[in-house]
């Protein structure tokens, strides 16, 4: 299973709509970095509105992909984290520190714009 990555001008947009298994998550990590490289993208929004569970493994993959993208020079914003997911992550003691987040896709794009202009 592959998660589609859409290009919008200098940005890449991803809406995760599947129940993430480990392989899909790792494949996505690789696909996203390749796409950033290929398109020379400045920013990425990963929308998690449809994701109803993030366990420690998926959290690590997401945190890593943000750092890896930063290394390549692209900013990543995570959007749409559901209340249950936020509560569960904090219960588990997983802090996605230094990961920019926004309520939804629109605010995520605004945030990217601000960060890139700053």
């Amino acid at each position, binding site marked *: 299973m592959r998660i589609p990555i859409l290009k919008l001008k200098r940005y890449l947009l991803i809406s995760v709509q599947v129940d993430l298994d480990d392989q899909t998550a790792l494949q996505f990590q690789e696909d996203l970095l390749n796409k950033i490289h290929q398109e020379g993208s400045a920013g990425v929004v990963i929308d998690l509105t449809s994701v*109803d569970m993030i366990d*420690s*493994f998926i959290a690590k993959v997401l945190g890593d992909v943000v750092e890896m993208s930063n290394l390549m020079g692209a900013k990543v914003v995570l959007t749409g984290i559901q209340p249950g997911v936020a509560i569960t992550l904090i219960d588990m003691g997983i802090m996605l520190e230094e990961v920019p987040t926004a309520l939804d896709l629109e605010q995520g794009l605004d945030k990217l714009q601000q960060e890139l202009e700053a």
Partner: protein
Amino acid sequence: MSVQSNVEVHSEWGIVSARQAGRNLAKELGFAGVDQARITTAISELARNIYLYAEKGEIVLEGIEGKEAGGVKRGLKIVAKDQGPGIKSIREVMEDGYTTSGGLGAGLPGVKRLMDEFDIDSITGEGTEITTIKWLR
């Protein structure tokens, strides 16, 4: 009450099947959204541990009843069992940040915090059985 399901875990797909079964049962028992997320996440961590450390095992999910002051409470019980190498030091695995797999080390202590009751039974060289319960509020 006899709602019970067993999910074999011997591949990454087993992890996904176990958490889907858990979500369905949690919904059926009347757990709210946030607790459904807690239960599903706990199952995912336990199933991943089986796959990572024991290669195969099973997750048993069951709707249960318990006594409480003034009546009966309902809950969901998760039993994760394997015949893997066992856990050498339970104290260490229950520490936040302890990992032997390069993960976040949030797994077992995380599960304990997500659920209401938590118990590990492990014998080195024979296997591990973890039982954990979430009560319906």
